[in-house]
């Protein structure tokens, strides 16, 4: 066991866990943030996607020992800064989720995409989002919602998030 001091959603979190424990289980079972999901355990489905210093990563394949001490971790609970992120709003407007289980991961990937590519093409979306599986098959709406969020963000001049 080892003590790790983390910054999750701008809050300090101290955990005492095995160094090889994936960030996913630290977030879920030790930081108590259940919005990040387990789906495959081998970075194939993207349900566990979180941001590490703004970059989307698969937390199920990220041992806690590899997370730098001053790294900033952002989960689905932390993207909105107290309100809904433009992506979350668009997800509601387009009624994207069915079961919703994969959507935390989808949203984390989409938020990261819009940060680097504010006006993504369908191809940009395909390439940024193809690591996230949705068994309910909401892909068509995800595409529409990302375009909508990009448009909304343009008109309201901010993408929110961090």
């Amino acid at each position, binding site marked *: 066991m080892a003590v790790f001091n983390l910054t999750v959603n701008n809050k300090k979190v101290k955990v005492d866990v095995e160094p090889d424990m994936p960030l996913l289980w630290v977030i879920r079972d030790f930081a108590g943030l259940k919005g990040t999901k387990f789906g495959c355990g*081998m970075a194939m489905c993207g349900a566990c996607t979180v941001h590490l210093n703004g970059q989307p990563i698969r937390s199920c394949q990220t041992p806690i020992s590899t997370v730098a001490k001053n790294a900033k971790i952002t989960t689905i609970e932390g993207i909105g800064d107290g309100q809904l992120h433009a992506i979350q709003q668009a997800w509601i407007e387009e009624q994207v989720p069915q*079961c919703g289980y994969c959507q935390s991961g989808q949203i984390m990937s989409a938020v990261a995409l819009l940060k680097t590519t504010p006006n993504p093409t369908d191809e940009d979306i395909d390439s940024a989002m193809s690591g996230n599986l949705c068994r309910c098959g909401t*892909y068509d709406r995800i595409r529409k919602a990302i375009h909508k969020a990009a448009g909304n963000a343009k008109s309201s001049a901010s993408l929110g998030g961090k």
Partner: protein
Amino acid sequence: MTSRRNFLKTTSLTTFGFALGVSSFAKDAVLKKISPAIISLEINPFIIIDTAGNITLVNPRPDMGQGSTQAVPSLLAEELEVSLEKVKIVQSDGKGKYGDQTSGGSSSVRALWQPIRKAGAAAREMLIQTAAKRWNVSVSECFAQDGKILLRGSDKSFTYGELADDASKLEIPQNPKLKDPKDFKILGKYNKRLDVPERVTGKAAYGIDAEVPGMVYASIVHSPMLHGKIASIDDADTKKVAGVLQVVRTERTMPHRKSEAVAVIATNWWAALKGKKALKVQWDNGDYEKTLSSEKYFTELYEAAKKEGINYEEKGDFAAKYASSKQKIESNYETPFLSHAPIEPVNAVVHVKDDGTIEIWAPVQGPDWTMRDVCAYMNVKPEQVKINVTLLGGAFGRKAYHDFLLEACHLSKELKKPVKVIWTREDDMTQGPYRPGMLSHMQGFVENNKITGFHHHAIGESIVGQVFKGLKDDEADPWLTGEISTENSNYHFSTASKISWTNVKTDIPVVWWRSVYASNFGWGQECFIDELAHLAGKDPLQARLEILSDARFKKVLETLAEKANWSEKLPVGQGKGLAVFKSFDSISAACITVSKKESGVKIEKVVSVIDCGYYVNPDNVKAQTEGNIVMGLTAAIKDGITFTNGVCDQTNFHQFNLMRINETPKMEIHIIDSGANPGGVGEPGLPPIAPALGNAIFAATGKRIRKLPFDISNIA
């Protein structure tokens, strides 16, 4: 036992107005009043209106993404004249008083359309009667609107809360007047789902998120050959893993058989998983290395195709007519075993308490079926069991099969503490149960350019037979009725037709998968109709219209032809294919456009049409159909499940690939407003997808594909 007091407590109601019970079993719902004085546990409190005006509905259908938490309250809100957000939902707990509580068979709206509306209408009439009495006017002068009863031509009104107590003393009208559909404000209209915000903020609580005090975690080593016996266990390395508490023998209980298993118990699930990986279990696998083989199974299916099956139905002497016909064809259509692969793996928290009562938190499709299985397995009575149904992170049939939950029951009883079992993706994929692999042996003939003879021989493992042990050796699977029977397909073959069946058994566990057998046999039926159309020299649309008599089927196909521009001239290398299939009382058809690309084809577009009769929310009908397009295409062109030398060849999403966003074609959904009784929505869009694709590929390339899945980039 849940007393009324407790029930009210758990639903956060502190005051009591009146409650209506409604049985969802009965076609004509029987309404019962539950007055405070005579309240009994045998009465089913489905709907409660309290004196503060709060409306609570006990929703008998778990939400696995199909939208039941919107659909069911919409039925009530419509008749009760309140907005959707006024209805608070409590998930039913599996007790018998709530009737049928399983989300499956696309049944929620079909089954509840009448009973819940009737309950809402009865409550509305009772509230109106109460108001009329207070104002000393006739009921015709009062009307319900937005949670109030209003007096016509005045500004007088009472809220439902103000009327609830007195209303509860009235006789319940047994035949309340339901609203005319033309007056619907909610049903059939676009409404946003109120559960979406929690599903995009990480707040929605699924089974895997459940935690109870004192809980330990279990990861389970299942038999790699599914039914092997444990020869030895070496847990030395497992016990060195920090957090591991103990290693215990357990069992996996499927409906038809049990398997031995070993559980690693730990303080957290990661430790349990690490302990599982370090565990060395030797298995005595008997003959399973030889017998557990999908290749062997399919060989048996193809052998069965050469023999006569058991007749499900026959019109005319098919064999004789087929033998003498001049223009005939015969072919076999194969569909693989498939994993449901909901992204939330199966999981459950179970606490077998010291007093013998059991509390469960789990993502299950039906708390009633769960109750049945838990009571039988644990030898307890329903009043000793409390089931808390969580949200389901997808299910597709898998979470109405309770092996994972009974594992948690077994372990909690053994360990005398709450236990959380989470299966790994590898458990999910390698253990099953699966959609059965099936074969359709097809024969047919044409006369005078018309399809007049048709035989569908359905071959494979029976879900009814394996899961319910409910199929006799000389009996055709009764579930064919709603699948490929001519009554269901609506096809009329004027000379002769036959539907037959052969049950080929397997040790591979099988269960219903989205749209059940329709996902298998729709492939054979609809591709072969295309083959026959080609033989008859007919356009596939025209050939179908000639042998369909039902106006709804025709309308669906004609609408599809119009929306998909069926008759347009396509550039060389492009092709369109269509298919139609009725399942769960809804008729769905799809048209797929493909274009040749290098050695394969690209799916350009999918147009889907559905006639599901009356529906609740057109946007949800579309969402479900979009999902069916993706799942139907995945089943056609991604991976199947195979067993070689006793073990499943696919262990995770790198070998059982699902369709991803970059592979998802453009899609368009059209709903037909037929005004028929509600049909299903969650499944009927799926069966036409694979055959529409197969038929499109034939149109574009001349290559007829008969085996699923296939590699769309290599149509050799």
